[in-house]
């Protein structure tokens, strides 16, 4: 049975999704979603340990041998992504039971979980597959279900936000499929490993460079790289709390993974950096993203929106890590994929707790909550500190590697920028803390602590934030292995 794990990882959530539609009962649908997430998480853990112990796994769907058939190929890089996605999904799904009951109409809850499972399986599929067209198919599965999930938000503007996301997402997906098509036209293959073999022979062909351009812009759009991030703030702000936590922690991460796969595994680091000068493209955009989006975040009054802009800035850190074009830089980027998923998951879930009790995540509505909802706000504070990069949290580990990579490359101004923007992060996190702890609670509202059903998953992620901040050997080990694979230094 274990040899089927790579495909089961993706197929189990995919099969459970229609079951959710069939059973229609909200709690039963939730149970199926929880089952799917747990299975995916368990399988991901098994896969990652296998991959680390004995090298990449390969699975031929339908017994068609690659490069003709579809191959699922899992090495340290995507095993890691599978862990991130399924871990966050598991935490969010336990959080979602109470949160979704409050925020989504009862008649739609079953459909919600169906879409959730589809989105999960799409994201896992993108990560697991070794076939570029399959990437596109799973990208569409995850995106379409994501649009539906976002549209389920309470606010009327959720629909408009989902629609804009749909347009932008479709443009991005189209660009990616155009890129894939151009690659296929030039090389006649869709298998990643095969493409990697054949592409060096056609580096000089213009079609390949154009394909590269389309893939780059498509990925930039999907991962919300500044200035193509415009769809993200609204989508995150108006989606149901659980969806925001899930999407923020996984969707953009998987898009970054796509970028890494396309540019490092398929085209190769040499082509990306020597021929296409990818580092020179990415670095200014990353710096602009970090600076301008951190600044925008400082000025926000809706905390969900604030964190959404912060996400764009944090994506800037990952891209910055990639732009260093070194193993250390990629380690930082891959590490931050995981760490940022942990912190943003925790933060958005804490906000979900606030929304559950107060119904608003406006900064003024959070005044005095430090006393009324101590556990929730404590979770927010720890998550926020992690975002700032305070030692003993995962944020510090990421920043540490980013700065090391900057210094290694001799670009110390970038190291300084990373430190300065940490202070900017402190500024926007502080605004929330200030409201929660230093302002008086308006006396006319009765507010209690969020229920344990919400707090337990939130704190689970918070604890992981601290745990992997202190004991970073495992995460750093995997990230380094992944970075070596991507740079072509290890199989």
């Amino acid at each position, binding site marked *: 049975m274990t040899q*089927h794990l790579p495909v089961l990882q993706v197929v189990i959530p995919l099969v459970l999704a229609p079951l959710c539609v069939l059973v229609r009962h909200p709690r039963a649908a939730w149970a199926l979603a929880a089952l799917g997430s747990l299975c995916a998480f368990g399988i991901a853990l098994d896969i990652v340990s296998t991959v680390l112990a004995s090298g990449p796994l390969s699975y031929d*769907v339908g017994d068609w041998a690659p490069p003709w058939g579809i191959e699922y190929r899992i090495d340290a890089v995507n095993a890691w992504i599978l862990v991130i996605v399924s871990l966050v999904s598991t935490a969010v799904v336990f959080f979602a039971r109470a949160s979704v009951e409050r925020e989504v109409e009862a008649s739609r809850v079953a459909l919600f979980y169906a879409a959730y499972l589809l989105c999960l399986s799409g994201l896992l599929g993108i990560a697991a597959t070794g076939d570029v067209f399959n990437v596109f198919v799973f990208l569409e599965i995850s995106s379409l279900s994501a649009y539906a999930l976002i549209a389920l938000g309470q606010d009327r503007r959720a629909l408009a936000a989902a629609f804009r996301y749909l347009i932008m997402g479709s443009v991005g997906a189209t660009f990616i499929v155009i890129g894939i098509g151009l690659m296929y036209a030039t090389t006649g293959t869709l298998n990643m490993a095969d493409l990697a073999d054949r592409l060096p022979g056609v580096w000089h062909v213009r079609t390949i460079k154009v394909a590269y351009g389309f893939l780059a812009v498509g990925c930039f759009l999907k991962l919300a790289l500044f200035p193509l991030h415009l769809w993200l703030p609204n989508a995150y702000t108006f989606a149901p709390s659980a969806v925001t936590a899930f999407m923020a922690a996984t969707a953009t991460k998987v898009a970054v993974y796509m970028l890494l796969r396309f540019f490092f595994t398929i085209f190769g680091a040499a082509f990306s950096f020597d021929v296409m000068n990818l580092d020179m493209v990415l670095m200014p955009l990353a710096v602009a993203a970090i600076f301008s989006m951190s600044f925008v975040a400082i000025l926000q009054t809706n905390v969900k929106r604030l964190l959404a802009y912060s996400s764009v800035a944090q994506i800037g850190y990952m891209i910055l890590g990639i732009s260093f074009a070194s193993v250390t830089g990629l380690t930082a980027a891959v590490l931050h994929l995981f760490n940022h998923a942990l912190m943003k998951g925790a933060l958005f879930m804490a906000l979900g707790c606030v929304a559950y009790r107060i119904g608003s995540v406006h900064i003024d509505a959070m005044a005095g909550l430090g006393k009324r909802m101590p556990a929730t706000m404590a979770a927010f504070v720890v998550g926020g500190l992690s975002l700032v990069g305070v030692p003993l949290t995962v944020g510090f580990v990421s920043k540490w590697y980013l700065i090391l990579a900057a210094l290694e490359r001799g670009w110390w101004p970038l190291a300084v920028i990373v430190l300065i923007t940490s202070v900017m992060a402190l500024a926007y996190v502080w605004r929330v803390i200030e409201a929660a702890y230093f302002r008086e609670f308006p006396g006319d509202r009765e507010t209690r602590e969020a229920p344990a059903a919400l707090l337990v998953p939130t704190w689970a992620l918070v604890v992981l934030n601290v745990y992997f901040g202190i004991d970073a050997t495992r995460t750093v080990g995997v990230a380094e292995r992944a970075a070596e694979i991507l740079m072509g230094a290890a199989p």
Partner: protein
Amino acid sequence: MREELVLRLAAKMMAPFILVFGLYVHFHGDYSPGGGFQAGVILAAAFVMLSLVFGLDAVQRALPLWFVRSCAALGVLVYAGVGFAAMALGANFLGYDALASDPEKGQHLGILLVEAGVVITVFGVMTTAFYVFADRGRRKS
């Protein structure tokens, strides 16, 4: 339109043929142009036509929303079920060879069943989409 005798009669007569043609497109999909996606749309088209002529309510009495929605889900299960069946018989996921004693027959059977899943899903999704949109317009007016 309910009073238009010619239309009502023509629609009633055409519907079975459309359905049969849809099934033909499906079953012949592995040898000639066609397949699950097209067949599903053709099947759905029959009901779309019927509801245009006889009204949404009449069709929904025969084919309620919950049924078509379940179809959408069921088809996926059929598809994945074939995959799992192959897995249970010792092949990889969707490895049709294992479905029958003769690999070639297995391929036939597998593709047919998978396409059947696709037919059911596409039919369900198309009809659901039509229902949802048609319903929306009706409520507003």
